[in-house]
């Protein structure tokens, strides 16, 4: 049997707040193969960043519930204790480029040292070896060698984002989670970073989970697409099937809202707002905004498999 790189099952991450429990990640399932990229698309607040934290076990203090399975290269890393997890998983097998990473670099350290550090700490290599590795990664992400000596403030936003990417790459993990890697960047810089990611995928065989609300740009890297709504994945499938014909009503409306440069169709918008993650409705979470809503939709919709695609909606349950 072919082994997936990553298999996520029923992943749950809830936060405790004074207003109630925030069900930010609520039963997420998806798979990812080696050398592939999955993009997780969804509106602000649907739980994308929380999902990345749940996958990488980077938890805040107010966790109410954290459960499920995260099989990475065949091991359920959720069963590991924190020590084992730190030693064998984070950085070593998968690393994260957090949202706004380019602004999170340490201002008083040379970027070369910052990029080398994870290799020293997590792979236990010498400083010189780590710097050599950092230099190699600078080449992969397109930052000139002599920038190793510079400080973050001496670099543009686009260059700092490449440095953040080099840092995630320096331990050569099989999987990198990217949280909104281009949304704060300019158009041409964005295109550059997407080129870099594509190149790394080909050259190093790295797999990616790309988390973003930028649907058009996400298609630059996507092999697979997962649509997240109110803490859940409502559709997942291959990009080549998804982009031309999304299945879930939310996916369809989301895609119809994207303005396109090379098309004359008038973009539409979705009326209403997503439900609060503290007080979720019974049944389908999209029901209040769905034009196809039926009586059945007040019950939890099943996940329907159609070939390589999965969709969580009563419309497709026949």
């Amino acid at each position, binding site marked *: 049997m072919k082994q997936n790189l990553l298999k996520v099952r029923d992943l749950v991450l809830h936060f405790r707040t004074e207003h109630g429990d925030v069900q930010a990640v609520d039963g997420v399932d998806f798979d990812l193969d080696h050398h592939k990229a999955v993009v997780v698309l969804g509106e602000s607040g649907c739980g994308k960043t929380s999902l990345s934290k749940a996958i990488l076990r980077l938890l805040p203090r107010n966790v109410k519930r954290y459960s499920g399975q995260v099989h990475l290269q065949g091991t359920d890393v959720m069963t590991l204790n924190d020590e084992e997890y730190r030693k064998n998983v984070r950085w070593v097998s998968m690393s994260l480029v957090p949202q706004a990473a380019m602004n999170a670099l340490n201002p008083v350290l040379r970027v070369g040292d910052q990029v080398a550090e994870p290799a020293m700490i997590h792979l236990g290599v010498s400083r010189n070896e780590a710097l050599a590795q950092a230099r190699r990664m600078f080449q992969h992400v397109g930052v000139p060698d002599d920038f190793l000596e510079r400080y973050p403030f001496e670099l543009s936003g686009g260059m700092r984002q490449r440095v953040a990417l080099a840092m995630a790459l320096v331990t050569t993990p099989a999987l990198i989670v990217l949280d909104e890697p281009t949304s704060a960047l300019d*158009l041409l810089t964005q*295109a550059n970073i997407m*080129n870099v990611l594509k190149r790394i995928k080909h050259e190093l065989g790295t797999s990616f989970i790309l988390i973003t609300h930028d649907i*058009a740009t996400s*298609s*630059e890297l996507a092999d697979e697409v997962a649509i997240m709504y109110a803490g859940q994945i409502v559709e997942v499938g291959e990009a080549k099937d998804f982009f031309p014909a999304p299945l879930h009503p939310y996916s369809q409306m989301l895609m119809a809202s994207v303005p396109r*440069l090379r098309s004359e169709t008038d*973009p539409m918008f979705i009326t209403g707002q997503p439900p609060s993650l503290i007080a979720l409705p019974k049944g389908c979470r999209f029901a209040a905004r769905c034009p196809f809503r039926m009586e059945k939709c007040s019950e939890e919709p099943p996940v329907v498999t159609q070939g390589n695609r999965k969709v969580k909606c009563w419309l497709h349950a026949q």
Partner: protein
Amino acid sequence: MITEMIPTQISKFEVKEQPLLSIRDLHVWYELRRFGFGHAGYVKAVDGVNFDLASGETVAVVGESGCGKSSLMKTILGLNVPTSGEVIFDERNLSKLTGDELRAYRFDIGYVQQDPYGALPPFMTVERILEEPLIISGVRNKKERLERIHKALGEVKMHPVEDFLQKFPHMLSGGQQQRIVIARAMIRGPKLIVADEPVSMLDASVRVEILKLMRALQEAHGLSVIYITHDLSTVKYFSARIFVMYAGNLIEKAATRRLLENPLHPYTLALLAATSDPDARNAETFKEVPPGEPPSLVNPPRGCRFHPRCAKAIAGLCDEKEPPDFTPEPGHSVACWLYEDKK
């Protein structure tokens, strides 16, 4: 005065009977001061901009971060003092206005800021936020103020109006906050709206809603709108004309349709090529991106400011002389030497 005279040609398209807004050779330079050194040069954020905007006309200004879009708009709004050049709005020359005239001028232009989250004062209710501009502009009668607030909220589709009057900004979604910002910009009945990245902070599904709302208001009131954005894919739904800005200059000006069909400036071509539509085939190819980054506005490159990044640069010309506006087709101007003989 720190002016640099740049030959300009005003295209026929721009010469209307009486433009609502006329910008002539506008320069906005910020002085740089370095501790111990005093004067250390200028940030030439706007450096020789010309255009006319007719009454009821919509135009988009497109360009990357730091190219001077907001500086240009703040100057038009009377919030920045131009270093040189003229802003003539509704037959008033901005540089000649003082005191009350300047206040009146500002009331005639509505401003929709870049960031709705920062634009609204957090401790004011929606009613107070909308009432304040009316009080400042001298609407003394409380009843009249309330009527106008109701009308403005209705126009931005905040129904039922009563439900929102006593709310504070944090109780509203991003899209609703931006509606309040638009209502505030509209409430004094302006002739011109300047919308600086009005939707870039909003989610995809809400963006379109807000852009459609702004277009409906523009049509209903015959407003002129300057729409600033870095997102080329939204422009055609909203603006009849488009100006592309690079390093303080408007480098290409055309009707939106025409610019999308027949882009001329190498920088415009690069922007268009970098703009993705959602399509699975995108993942199979690399994008062509010009090397390097936008230049420093303190010491911009000699000649064409794009020349260090331009694959078509003509040695000895592009790196020496700044290109003037050429007009290869009516209503379409481009500041690029490639079009010198085609005017």
